[in-house]
């Protein structure tokens, strides 16, 4: 247990080891640690950002969904209104057409009736003449009595 030059040798070895450690061991390891710390911090940051982005996107999607629903409802309402309108219009049109057709048919019927009446009148005049001819036994001058006959036919 003597104190001797081992002490000096140990001090030299110590100095060499410390210097080596300081130059070649400590810097790369601590640099890697710092870099990893930075990487992790960056990653966490990115995750936060992505989360915020996602929230924003979700909010905007919900917004869009709501507005499109509103729009759809509006469109459907309009369509219903329009359909009702069309039905109404069609009804009115149909009714008007019906009226028109009815009127036309009535007019035709009236015409037919008039025509028939006219025809009947003519035939009655002819019959009356024939009857009168027979009764009178003489021929009636058609020309002389045509005014009388047509007057008679008009009265019928």
């Amino acid at each position, binding site marked *: 247990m003597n104190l*001797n030059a081992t002490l000096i040798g140990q001090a030299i070895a110590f100095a060499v080891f410390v210097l080596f450690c300081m130059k070649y061991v400590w810097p790369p390891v601590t640099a890697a640690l710092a870099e990893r710390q930075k990487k992790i911090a960056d990653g966490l940051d990115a995750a936060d950002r992505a989360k915020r982005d996602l929230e924003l996107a979700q909010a905007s999607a919900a917004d869009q969904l709501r507005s499109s629903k509103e729009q759809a409802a509006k469109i459907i309402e309009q369509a219903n209104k329009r359909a009702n309108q069309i039905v109404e219009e069609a009804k009115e049109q149909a009714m008007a057409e019906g009226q028109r057709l009815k009127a036309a048919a009535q007019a035709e019927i009236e015409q037919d009736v008039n025509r028939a009446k006219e025809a009947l009148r003519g035939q009655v005049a002819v019959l009356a003449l024939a009857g009168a001819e027979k009764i009178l036994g003489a021929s009636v001058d058609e020309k002389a009595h045509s005014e009388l006959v047509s007057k008679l036919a008009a009265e019928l």
Partner: protein
Amino acid sequence: MASENITASEYIGHHLQNLTFGHLPERGWTLAHDAKEAAEMGFWAIHLDSMFFSVVLGAVFLYIFRKAATSVSSGVPGCLQNFVEILVEFVDKSVKETFHGRNPLIAPLALTIFCWIFLMNLMDLLPVDLLPRIAGEMGVHFLKVVPTTDPNVTLGMSLSVFALIIYYSIKVKGVGGFLGELTLHPFGKWMLPFNLLLEGVGLIAKPISLALRLFGNLYAGELIFILIALMYTAGAVVGTLGGVLQLGWAIFHILVIVLQAFIFMMLTIVYLSMAHEDNH
């Protein structure tokens, strides 16, 4: 194991003798054959075993850490890198908590101290007779395996730390500031000699206590291992008891080993931190 033909005290003495290389008046530069010759060699002798183990262990430490440092990546770390990073972070945290200045030397110094002293202390857990017996077969008659049970080794480190303390004290505070700290506190300039005595003792005590605490703990631990090893020669019952004791002491010693390495490191940081602080 102690051979039958030597006594217990010879066995212990043999285990506590370093392999000393030095100059003897009658035989020139040679290895000492016993404690008396080693003492005769005076200061200019060297303990080959202490130097060998401490340098080899320091090289092992630096080899492992350098290997991790060259392949270090900031991505997912491997096993070795993980291990090294844990130690580096642990030391870095200890340094940052205690030492508030900026000095690129302190943290690597602390890491070297912690790992190196831990490895040297770890040699204590090898069976006391294993390496000396192997060395004996190879013709080396003295071998002290644990470098930290050699006061030269612990003093060599603590005196280096002491030199750093003085260096940084003077660098930070200037020669005048350092001398003033030694002489003008705590009682003012009229009590100058008393102050010097007080502060001087405090200053000198730092390296001495640093070295002797480590040396004392490990020396005592080693001695107890040797004493327990002696029990193996005293029959089956005592030998079994010795085995149990050895195991218990080894487990307890794991704590001592780490603790002493940690204490040496922490005190180094604290002392250097004090050297950097201006206000007393």
